[in-house]
């Protein structure tokens, strides 16, 4: 096995392990993510608390695991949503061309020009206050998925435009192949590598966006953990300086984002 393939396999195995650990967090740790051990805030790692505790005395290992569940389950879901939207509209726009393409691209440009943060702020303000933290996190990621399609759409549209002018599509049209069949059997399968790339790129992007939103107090609601609100505890560098183990969520986020980036070429090669 070549070193690059070994690296990719390692990354994939790491992501799978993390994903499963997050999914079955209740079986991995007996601590709740919300219980505050107030006599031990900012405790260093020990046998009782493997990763130590946060500023309110909550077990950091439990919070990282449950936060992983939130971030690694919902970020791919949001990425899938935005990729589907981008795939459907981008491929049609690129293939059809003309006024339809202009309209779709103009809509994408308009969406990209919207200040995402303020849109999310406004939407959050419109939501009812008495919603469960789980609902809040799902809503947050749905919003991210619904608002994150324009960048992917432009890439898919450009790829679709290239296909529109390709020889094999010219041949398909010349043989009288109907437009629906051309899109479903020729265009979309050929867009697969682009769509997969967009999907994989979007996952770390959404993880980071949720982290940013949580940093602003707009993401996942307490006491439910996410990588974002775990990173909030690191706003003050003195906390990290005094309790270096508190930086573990940050290390994890960096490793996960790198892992996603490293396994991405493999997807392209497969496609």
């Amino acid at each position, binding site marked *: 096995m070549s070193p690059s393939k070994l690296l990719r396999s390692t990354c994939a195995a790491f992501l799978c392990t993390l994903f499963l650990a997050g999914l079955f967090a209740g079986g991995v740790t007996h601590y709740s993510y*919300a*219980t*505050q051990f*107030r006599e031990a*805030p900012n405790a260093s790692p020990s046998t009782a608390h493997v990763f130590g505790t946060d*500023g*309110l*005395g909550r077990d950091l290992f439990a919070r990282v695991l449950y936060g992983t569940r939130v971030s690694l389950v919902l970020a791919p879901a949001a990425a899938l949503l935005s990729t589907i939207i981008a795939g459907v509209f981008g491929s049609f726009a690129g293939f059809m061309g003309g006024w339809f393409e202009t309209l779709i691209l103009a809509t994408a440009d308009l969406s990209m020009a919207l200040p995402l943060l303020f849109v999310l*702020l406004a939407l*959050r*303000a419109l939501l009812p*206050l*008495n*919603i*469960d*933290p789980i609902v809040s996190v799902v809503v947050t990621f749905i919003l991210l998925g619904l608002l994150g399609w324009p960048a992917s759409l432009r890439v898919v549209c450009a790829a679709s435009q290239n296909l529109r002018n390709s020889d094999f599509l010219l041949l398909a049209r010349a043989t009288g192949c109907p437009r629906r069949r051309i899109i479903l059997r020729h265009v979309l399968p050929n867009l697969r590598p682009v769509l997969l790339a967009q999907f994989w790129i979007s996952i770390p992007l959404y993880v980071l966006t949720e982290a940013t939103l949580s940093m*602003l*107090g*707009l993401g996942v*609601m*307490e*006491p439910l953990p996410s990588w974002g609100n775990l990173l*909030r505890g690191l*706003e*003050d*560098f*003195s*906390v990290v300086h*005094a309790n270096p183990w508190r930086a573990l969520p940050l290390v994890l986020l960096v490793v996960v984002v790198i892992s996603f980036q490293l396994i991405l070429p493999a997807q392209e090669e497969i496609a």
Partner: protein
Amino acid sequence: MITRSLWGLLLFAFAVLSPAAQAQSGGELHFCLHGEPKTFNPVLVDDEAAEQIRYLTGGVLIRLNRQTQAVEPGLAASWEISHDRRTIAFHLRKGLRFSDGTPFTSEDAAYTIKLMMDPQTHSPTGDAFRSGEGTVDVKTPSPEVVIITFPAAIAGLDQLFDQVAVMSAHSPKKEMAVLGPFFVAEYKAGSYVLLQKNPNYWKHDAQGNSLPYLDSIRMDIQRNREIELVRFRKGELQLINRLDAEQFERLRQNDPGVARNAGTGLDAEELWFNQVPSAPLPEYKKAWFRNTEFRRAISAAINRDDLCRIVYSGYAKPAYGPVSPANHFWFNSALEKPTYDPKNALALLTRAGFRYEKEMLKDAAGNRVEFNLVTNSGNASREKMAVMIQQDLSQLGIKVNVVTLDFPSLIERMTRTFDYDSCLLGLVNTDLDPDSQMTVWLSSGENHQWNPNQKTPGTAWEAEIDKLMREQASAPADKERKAKFDRVQQIVAEQAPFIYLINKDVLVAVSSSVVGTAPVVLSPQAFWNAETLRLTSGTALGAQK
């Protein structure tokens, strides 16, 4: 004999080498303003930065001593207040001059008062003096006497003049001619404000030396508190006027001598339930929030000691009520210290018809007790407190949904839509006198947060508070006012419309190169006595440059 001589020599060496002895006049003090001053006009001041500049540059007729919390003569050598608290007569000091040399007379005091009370000026300082309909009458029978008559009685009238920096009626420099220890010499927007010693300042020390000792004060405009702390540690700044608990603890660990705790401050953090009758909440929730026993139970179920210890690293004290113990005169020392007692909380709830079953608290109709607690996003301490309250109340089977909102959305809900269950916010107290809290305590007040702008008081106890607050405002003697405001504090403690949580300590940083500091809880905490501050010789010679 030899031993005695040696001791004498040692004492002499100590006296010579001690910072106080090394301190000398002159030099430039550096610290930061945390925002851009919006004005240098003292009657228009409405922000913290401008207020700090006004404090350092403005001459006032009466000064509130930040340490003793008592009023002292300023530009007025003496004054008399009429029995009806409408008229105040000032006897001014003679021979004083503004920083540009213009003589100070009663005309200047009259000019300032008239300008401040002119509705066209829109003076925030003047608002405190607007006691009733009608105009303010200002008379100047002589250059040393000014008599001011307000249309209605004003409580704490003398203290209010601490905010009134006298402006010159005749100086071509207008508001830039001042009577305080310093004047504004240079201002670069977004960068710094440079104050220089006022050569005509009227005060002298006990030895007859002219004050202030410092030649100048440079205030860099710096919003980022972390950068401010780094600069302080590098020796570029000599003061930090307010630190948060985490910064203070960090500084204390590295350099215990410079981190100074002035004690419990005036500011409080509090929680309240929405009791607005028209709020878009279910009727059963409104009934909970209007129930005194429910509110008292919530208060008893919150562990304030833990809030102080964990959120504020021990640099806060559990709050008793609306007035902090730091407010020496107005604090009601008879109030009971709030105690964490979940059993009592559950007993109160049971008495109010709630029942605890299957780890859930339900009301008499079987509705689960669940409410949202909103606070502003971006305030880490407040968010931590909300999460701790969430856990405390979960022990009673109460489900609390913590929601952080951006400030405009929060204000919209608090003041217009009333679409929230409970709110956690802080109350900033800058004034000692309870009269400044009229809009909070009067049921018709817009800051009567649990149920603002009422046409008539919704409850008997709110009606009693209204009556007491109006009576204290017009009572002739402070003792009588205090008795009435003590009763207000007692009612608030019993009814718990605001559940007071903590009073934060006032934390400052003062470099060892500054001599004469005595941090206090009133603003400006670290440099209230700027006129008597000195720098040690190395610093005074400009080492900081």
